[in-house]
Each structure stands twice: as C-alpha cells, then as structure tokens.
C-alpha cells in the first residue's frame, strides 16, 4: 500500500516536473545557442511567454482545412505527453513503468509523427506536403536505426522497458564497452532527427524551402500551434530523459525510497543541464545537411547500431 502510494506520488511529481520544465530546457538551449553565436539571446523563460502568448491569441483556421484540422495537434500532443509519462526522469519504478516498453514508445513517437504529417497535408498547400514527404524519408531510417540500437540494450539488460533497462544499467556491472559507445552514437543521431535539430533540420530556421518539421505547422496558429510547439519542447526533454536514463543511469532514485529522491532529482537536473549545454554547442559547430544527405547520416547510425550488436555477439562468443 505504501509502495503504491509512493509510486503514485513519484509519478505525479515526475509528471509535474517534466511538464513544467520542458519549456525551460528549450529556453536554456536557445540561450546557450545565442551565446555561442555571440548574441545576447532571449531570456531562458521566453518559451513560457511564447506559450502563454499562443494561449491568448485567437486561433485561425484556413478555409481549405477540413473538420479534422483540430485533431492533429491534439493527437500529436497527447502521444508525446503519454510517452513523456513512460520515461523515467529522476527515479525508477514509477506506476507507469510496466507500460514503458521501448516498442510502445516507438509507436507513440510514430503517432506524433503521423499527426504532424497529416497536419501538414491538411490545408493542401505546398510547404506542408514537402515537409511531410521529407519527414517520411527521415523516419524510415530513424526507425530502423532506433530498433537496431534497442536490440543492443535489450541484449545487455534482458528487458525491453526503458525502466528495466535503466535499472539494469544502474545496478549491473555493464562497464564501458565499445558496443554501448556505438549504440550511443546511433541513438544520438536518431534523437537529433526526431527532435528536428541541426544537422537534419533547423528548429529556428526561417526559410520555408529548407524546413521539415516547421513546414508542416505553417498554417497553424493560436491554441493549435501551442500544442505543436509544446509537444516539440516535450519531445526534446523526452529524448534527453531517454538518453540520460539509458546511458547515465547512475544513482537514479527509487520510487519506493523517498530518501533517494533528492539525490535522483539533483542528478537529473545536472544531466539535463549538461545535455542542454552540449546540444547547442554541437549545433553551432555543424551545418545543416542537404535533405538527401540525411539518409546517409541515418544509414551510418543504423550501421553503428548493427556493429554494436555484432560486437556483443562476438563478445558473448569469446566469453562463453
């Protein structure tokens, strides 16, 4: 009973934290990016103001949109938000942990992606369709690379839930292996693509021809745009959580042990903070790719994921 209550509190705390912190993370990333480019940058709380502004603005619907225009932002937000609840942040063993199978997570990402693409096609204007076509191309390789990288984690952790993988990597002596390094590289490439960052896409780009994710949202405004933007912020934090839980799981808290929470919380803030610093530094040091270079980039990620598993097989062969 106590365990359940603590699990519930931990889950609610997790939900409150991630939903509140997602815009802040986006703000920090934007601020550091501006600094790295030699600008002053907007304050870190700018995304909150942005979301509030969208909440208070009236929502315009294009004449050529169908009745389903409002469905896509809601579906995109809900899928991302449900996925957000399944990935551990500061502690493992939340009530939602058994639901958090990695493949379910991939499916939820797919819903969010499908909803965004359909939103882009909704009004039948050129940029939305172009963006959707590119998104399909990227997702094909990203999904394959993600599945192959997942194989490596499942082989090491003997479980497929994100929670189980985090616990296994925290408690077992996995050690630093070449396999995990390759898997990390593969996962980072997929994460950059899924969250629409440089080098595959530019979230702050203003040229419609070069847009991918933003191109599909061009006709949205007000509340609907708010949902898409908030979902994008959540997705960024979600991938940071995911990479943090898998690759830096040390001293994660336990939902059943209240005294482990503060340590887990502190570490979570440090992890996310470090990633929020590294991401913009990486972004300003590279250039955006041509659209048809991205499959090569993700194909390389897939091969790295493949190599990660091959090294594991060879290691198992030598070990036995």
């Amino acid at each position: 009973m106590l365990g359940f209550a603590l699990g519930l509190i931990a889950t609610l705390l997790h939900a409150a934290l991630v939903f509140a912190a997602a815009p802040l993370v986006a703000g920090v990333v934007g601020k550091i990016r501006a600094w790295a480019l030699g600008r002053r940058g907007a304050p870190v709380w700018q995304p909150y103001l942005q979301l509030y502004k969208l909440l208070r603005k009236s929502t315009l619907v294009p004449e050529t949109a169908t009745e389903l225009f409002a469905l896509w932002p809601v579906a995109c937000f809900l899928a991302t938000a449900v996925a957000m609840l399944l990935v551990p942040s500061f502690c493992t063993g939340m009530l939602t942990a058994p639901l958090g199978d990695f493949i379910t997570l991939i499916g939820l990402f797919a819903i969010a992606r499908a909803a965004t693409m359909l939103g882009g096609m909704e009004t039948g204007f050129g940029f939305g369709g172009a963006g959707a076509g590119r998104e399909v191309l990227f997702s094909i390789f990203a999904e394959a690379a993600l599945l192959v990288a997942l194989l490596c984690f499942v082989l090491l952790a003997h479980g497929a839930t994100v929670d189980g993988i985090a616990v296994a990597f925290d408690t077992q002596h996995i050690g630093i292996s070449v396999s995990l390094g390759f898997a990390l590289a593969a996962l980072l490439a997929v994460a950059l693509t899924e969250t629409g960052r440089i080098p595959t896409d530019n979230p702050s780009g203003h040229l419609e021809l070069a847009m991918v994710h933003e191109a599909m949202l061009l006709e949205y405004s007000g509340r609907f745009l708010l949902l898409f933007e908030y979902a994008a912020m959540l997705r960024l934090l979600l991938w940071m959580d995911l990479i943090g839980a898998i690759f830096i799981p040390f001293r994660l808290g336990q939902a059943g042990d209240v005294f482990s929470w503060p340590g887990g919380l502190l570490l979570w803030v440090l992890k996310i903070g470090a990633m929020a610093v590294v991401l913009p530094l990486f972004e300003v040091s590279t250039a955006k790719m041509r659209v048809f270079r991205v499959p090569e980039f993700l194909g390389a990620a897939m091969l790295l994921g493949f190599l990660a598993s091959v090294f594991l097989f060879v290691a198992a062969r030598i070990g036995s």
Partner: protein
Amino acid sequence: MHLQPDALSWLFLGILLPQVVASAVAGMRGSVTFWVFGLGMALALLAGDAFTLIFGFELMSAASWLLVLRGDERPATFYVTMAIFSGACLIPAVFLPASSVAFVLILLGTGAKAGLAPLHAWLPKAHPAPPAGVSALMSGGMVKVALYVLIRYAFIILAPAAQPWWGVVLIAAGLASVLIGALRAMLEVELKTVLACSTVEHVGLIAVGLGVALRAKAMGDETLEGLGLQAALLCIVAHALFKPLLFLGAGEVKHAVGTTSLNWLGGLVRGMPRLGGLMLLGAACMAALPLGAGFAPEFLLLHAIIGAAATGGILARLFFTAALAILGLGAALALGAAVRLFGMGFLGRPRSLQAAAADDIRGAPLMAMGLLAVLILPVALLPGLVLGTMTPVLLLLAPQAALPPLAYAPLSLAVLALLLAAALGFVLQRWGVRGTREVAGWNGGFGAPPPWLPFGDPATQPSATGLAEPVARAIGRGVLARDMADPTEAWLVAPLLQLYRRLVRLAERIRRATIRERLAFVFGALVVFLLALGLGEGG
C-alpha cells in the same frame, strides 16, 4: 468429401465470416460467383482430407479468376497462371509423405496464392481489378486461406519432419515481402493498388512470425515459438478486419468520385465525413499505430525477432539483427503509406470537381463498413483477451509453446491519454481564448485564388507522386527495378516471359520447316543414332 473442422479451422472461419457478410451487404450478394468463391474458401477451411482441401482451394481460385476477369481482363491471365502454378505445387505436395520436399512445394503453392515474395507480383495487379467487395474478400480472406493451408501443413501435418531451415526460408521470404510491399505501397498512386501492396507487406509480417515460430519449434525454444505464433495469428485477425474495411471504402470512393487515383482525390473528409472517419480508423490500423489493431501484432513480432537475436549461433543472430532493421524500415514505410493514403485522398483541397462534390456513404455500404469497424475495436483495445480466446489454436499448433501475457496494454495507455486530454481541456477552457476564426490560408504569402477556382489551382497542391518522391529517390531506385516496377516482375517474370516467347518462336520455326529441312533432320538423326550405336558396340 470429408469435413473435419478443428480449432484452427474455426478460427479462420470466424475470420472469414465478417468479411463475407460485409462484402455481401456492400453489394456482392447478387453474384453467384461470389458465393461460389465464399463456398470454396469455407470448404478449404473445413476440409478433413487432402482431396476436399484441394477441391475447395481450386474452387476458390477458379471463382476468383472469373471475378477478376469480369473486372479487368489484363491481369486475369497473369493471375490464372499463378493459380495454376500454385495448384501444380500443392496437388503433389498434399500426397507426399512428411519431408522437406513436401514443405518446399507447400510453401511455393501457398506462397504463390498468398502473395509471398518472390511470387507476389500478380497480387497488386489482380486484387484491385474486381469490384471492391471481391477485392476485400480476396485481400482479407483468400490470402488467409492460403496461409491457413501453410500453417496446417507446416505446423501439424509435416511437423514430424520439421527442420529449422524451413523457418529461415519463411522468414527470408517474409522480409522481402515486407520491404517490397511497404515500399510499393508508399509509391503507388492508385488507392486500391496501395492497399494491395500493403497486403503483400502484411503477408510478409505474418510469414516472419510463422517462420520464427517454425524455426523455434524445430529447435525446441518454447518462448519464441509462442511469441511468433501469437504475432502471426493476431496479425491475421487484425488484417482480416481492417483491410476489407479499407477496400470497401476504396470502392465507395470509386463510386462517389469515379476514380481511385490519389492524384485526383483530395478533401474527401469535407463531403464524406463518415467514410473519412472509417478510413482513418483503417489507415491507423494499417500503419500499426498504438491503440490501433495493427500495433499488438507488430509489438509481438518485434519482440520475437529481438528474442531470436538474443540466442543461437552468430550467423543466426546477425540474420535476425538485419531482420530487425528491415522490419523497422517496413514499419516506417507502412506509416508513410497510410499517412499518404489518408492525407492525399481525404485531406487538403479537392483535385477535381467530382472530389469536391462527393456524397457521403449511407445505407448498406455504411452498415458493412460499420460492422468491420465495430469488430476492430476489441482487437485494438483488448488484444490480450483476443489472444486468450486463441489459446486452443495455439496449443493445437504448438503444444509446448510458452504463452506469456502481452506486455502492451492499450487500455492503460488510453486511460493515460484521457487523463491528459482532460487536463489539457481544462487548461484551454480556463485560460485559453475559445473559438476559431475561418480565414484564407497563409500559403507562403500567396494571394487568394481567383473566384472561378474555389479550391485554388489543384496543380499547386502537392500530389501523391510528389509526396513519395524523396522516398523514391533515396531508396526506391535501390530496391525496385526501373520505373519503380516490382523487382520480381523485372527480374523473374520478364525473363520467364522472354524465354517463353523464344520457345514459342522455336516451335513455330519447327512447325514451318520445309520438306528438305525435315528430311535432313531425319537423316541427321539416323546418322547420329548409328554413330552412337557403333561407338557403343565398339567400346
């Protein structure tokens, strides 16, 4: 004639029944050939001996050929050739003792009928040809009957001689089907052809599941056996519900707009909200999205492949890792195909006047599609329960299989989503500005269209071909043949056709030989014969 149904037969009959009812309600009930088609399928499923099975199977083939012929003559010849090939493989196979030869013949015979690569090239041509009700039953039912024969022979009748490589062959064929089917579904423009290509993909997924189970059964791995079979059977059930739904919907689109080319549709949700909703449900299942009927089988299948990659020799592990990558590609392509189908056909601006003026479905077709949609819901939301009711079948096919509970819980996900939706609704109601205002779209700053083009110039809207262009450019040219044709068509069917033409020309040449050539041939043959005789005597 001897009927002896068991749990497996009942499962497949249960799958068949809703489709037959839906197709009949949707407008096929007046056709005698349609009922003979259904009777053939039922006979093949209920058969207690090899003769009845073959009789029912061939009755089904013949009736479906007539139905295809009535729709479109061009693919009918190709179709009947494949049906004859299938029969020529199956008839000897069912009378052979349990052996690898029998399995290979069964696999060729049923694979040709189910559309398993490399024998699938006829399916995207033949399935769209007849009226929608027949297309629905061919994709949802006939393909399943072929898989039923494969399952019955591979898992029950030929089980004593089972070898692990049987499963590997099945997995390899399935993976090729998944990749080619999903890629072509992404690139094709005709709505019904897209659906038929997606059928090839789903047959591939089922074959991969069956292959994993077959290999695990021969190797004595109970967990994998259970997972693979669960994935395959659940995929069969789900596909038999959503694919007929989509095909019937395509028929209604054809009825209302006069074409099923995605490049001429667009904006159909506006005039056909009911059809749009039903097609959205079908497309979500086809794309294997969570909370749809297609996700649970995909989930089980990926877990089965991951499990298979975790054990065994290094070559097998590499094979399954590659299989995982191909399934990932296939899943994302299927999502793209479903999004493209719905986005191009039902969203956006109409591309023709007929599409702008389409009337919604009502009456019998609505009832038929509604029936299938209602049946999809339990499969989508309670896959664990559906798997539970299939336990007798699983135990019949694999008595030792371990059947772990399903780790994917759509109801819990739905509850989470509902809670979040409630919170979202509260926030938007409490602090948000309500209501929406309809305005001209921004459209990159272009001006409003002239009054005589109420939906703007259709040519300025991205087409289905254009949407698929990046994929066609990046991988279509690597996997498919020239002009995005099917690879087996270019590299298997075309050479065979060329060989056949050459043989015909040779036969014609012999038939037209002059009397001198004939006499010379007889004389030459005599000399050769005598020489051979003389050399033989001498030696």
